[in-house]
């Protein structure tokens, strides 16, 4: 698959501190790519280098096969984590200014702005000053400014922070629509549920190094432990436990349910789920049977703790 962005052995140092230690990434075209990592891992440093805000000390970055150069600024849309707008400037004027800085002509900018202001139902805000808007409203404007010049690569750093659930959902739908139209999206966040929901690919950066990269599903497969979460109603708990421990590793677990059943986590190793089910059905009524697939959050925590 074609990679729209290739980061090759990028190094960035601030004085004695190494922010990025030879990091390489490949972002496939048309994907939503989750850039994950704890605070201070080096995500923002990398994003700033991709946006040509700072220069790497070593390494190379290719956008669509070309070495990164100033003409690429127009092809990237960036929504920083630390974001804001001129408080005393009118919304419309401000959007026009920022669009023109990205290289749009005034007419192009007006056409695009009309489209987005209609779409997000914010037409009435044109002559308002930012200081008259709520934080969530200002965030919508920032989103519009980011996508206005129809960039092929979009970088969102914590895009949902500051949004209420309704608006967060609205922005999420817009992001998915942009993807459908062919844009590639790099998505840096701590919110694992949105990673789970949106991302096709992920990379995990920790302490200036990349630890994991790949398709989210592949990574999950790597991290699966063949464990099952089981709920069972049985009169003979001891008998059941005896049967299970003969063959599998068994532990207690917790999950939400309406029954007052026995809740177990069972690792089946090389056996099949059917082997487990046979034992269970022989001893009682199965109310719950789910494979424990590691979530992006589990993988994140596990990897960070191990390193």
């Amino acid at each position, binding site marked *: 698959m074609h990679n729209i962005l290739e980061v090759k052995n990028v190094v960035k140092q*601030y*004085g004695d501190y190494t922010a990025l230690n030879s990091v390489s990434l490949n972002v496939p075209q048309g994907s939503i790519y989750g850039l994950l990592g704890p605070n201070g891992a080096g995500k923002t440093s990398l994003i*700033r280098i991709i*946006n*040509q*805000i*700072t220069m790497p000390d070593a390494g190379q970055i290719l956008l669509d096969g070309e070495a990164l150069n100033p003409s690429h*600024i127009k092809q*990237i849309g*960036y*929504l*920083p984590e*630390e*974001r*804001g*707008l*001129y*408080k*005393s*400037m009118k919304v419309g004027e401000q959007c026009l*200014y*920022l669009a*023109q*800085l*990205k290289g749009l002509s005034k007419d192009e900018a007006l056409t695009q702005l009309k489209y987005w202001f209609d779409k997000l139902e914010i037409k009435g805000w044109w002559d308002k000053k930012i200081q008259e808007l709520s934080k969530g409203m200002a965030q919508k404007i*920032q989103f519009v*400014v*980011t996508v206005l010049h129809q960039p092929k690569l979009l970088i969102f750093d914590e895009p949902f922070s500051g949004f209420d659930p309704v608006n967060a959902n609205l922005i999420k739908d817009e992001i998915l629509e942009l993807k459908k139209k062919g844009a590639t999206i790099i998505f840096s966040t701590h919110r694992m549920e949105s990673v789970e929901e949106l991302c096709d690919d992920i990379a995990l950066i920790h302490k200036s190094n990349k630890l994991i990269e790949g398709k989210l599903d592949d990574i999950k497969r790597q991290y699966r432990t063949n464990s099952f979460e089981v709920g069972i109603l049985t009169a003979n708990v001891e008998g059941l436990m005896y049967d299970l421990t003969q063959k599998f590793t068994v532990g207690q677990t917790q999950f939400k349910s309406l029954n007052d059943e026995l809740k177990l986590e069972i690792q089946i190793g090389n056996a099949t789920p059917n082997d487990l089910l046979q034992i269970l059905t022989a001893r009682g009524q199965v109310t719950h049977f789910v494979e424990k697939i590691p979530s992006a959050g589990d993988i994140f925590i596990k990897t960070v703790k191990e390193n």
Partner: protein
Amino acid sequence: MSTLSLIIKREFNAKVRNKSFIVMTFLSPIIFAAVIALIVYVGSLKADVKQIAVHDESGVIKGELKNSDEYRYVDLSTVDLKTLRDSVTSEFYEGLLYIPKTDSLKALEKKVEFISNDSPSAGFIGSLENTIGQKLTYANFEGAKLDTAAISKATIDIDINLTKSTGEKSVKGLNEIKIGIGFMFGYLIMMFIIIYGNMVMRSVIEEKTNRIIEIIISSVKPFQLMMGKIIGTSLAGVLQFLIWAIVGVGLMMAGTAFFGVDASPTAGMSPEVMAAAEQNMGTAELYIREMWNLPIATLVVSFIVFFIGGYFLYSSLYAAIGAAVDNETDSQQFLLPIIMPLIVAIYIGFVTVINDPHGNIATAFSMVPFTSPIVMLMRIPFGVPVWQIVLSMVLLFGTFLGIVWFAGKIYRVGILMYGKKPSWKEIMKWINY
């Protein structure tokens, strides 16, 4: 439109549309004019005529004291001294001049009294002493049978004429006028740097606190943004200065018409020049000719060059400071080293240039890039060799390029640093980031 001109346009618009900017633009000349008008008005008020009672037992002085706008002398030698003292106490008279009867006039030297409950001005007492002293001296001359007319004729009052080696006549007080002109230009540059440098700094801090900075520099180079900001702000500043000048001149003319204040060139002259002018009707022309002899073209060209060089030098430092800090309060410690050279330059101008415009100190400080815009402009009216002006400009622009590069580095790193106040040491490290 290029990104730089977009930024300049936005900065300019943001400044001139700002309410406080508009208010300041039109209010300051009015306040300034109002203060001047008040001073002129108060000065032009006729003080009440003060009555001075004169009790002259010697009989020499009475009738010799001339009434003025301020003081009226009333001869009350016949009235009892005690009654007069009471009338001073009751404030009917401002004061009582008492000249006692003595054996000889010489004995009066320490005997004349002025009785008043206010403290009379030194000038008034001085003139009284002069008049009385002169009168008594002449009375003594007459007593000694000396020819007072001959003495008057023999008295010599010196008034030194100033002439140049070319034989051209010169006017007194020209030094003050020259420093005045130089000072005006130098002061203008300093005020401009402080007012608009601060404005650049505030606008950088605003972008940082608004958190719009990262959005903008993902589209433009930080250096472009910094330069656009400095240029846009300075254009707004030039506009404001022009409006001040126009409104100022307008108000001055209105004031002149209204108060009938003498706004002719002689108004600001020192008393010596005024006296000279009275004696010699050609002095006014001399004065005007001297003004035209000033290196006006050099002054104007130098003003523009030093103004641009000095302003960019300092305002890029202001921008760097704005980038390094999170709020205006934190900027104070960094501002001091910037303000210091400006203040030093003004003092050098006041103290050194006026006394010795071509001395070592004045020359040195007119070369040092941080003080040269002010000190050199103060020196130019006194005539500075062209090579010195050119060297100073070269030094200024060389340093200016270095400082803008340096400030650009700090700016680039600083604008993305949130939430902490850096130390000087840390800022220096940013150069290598």
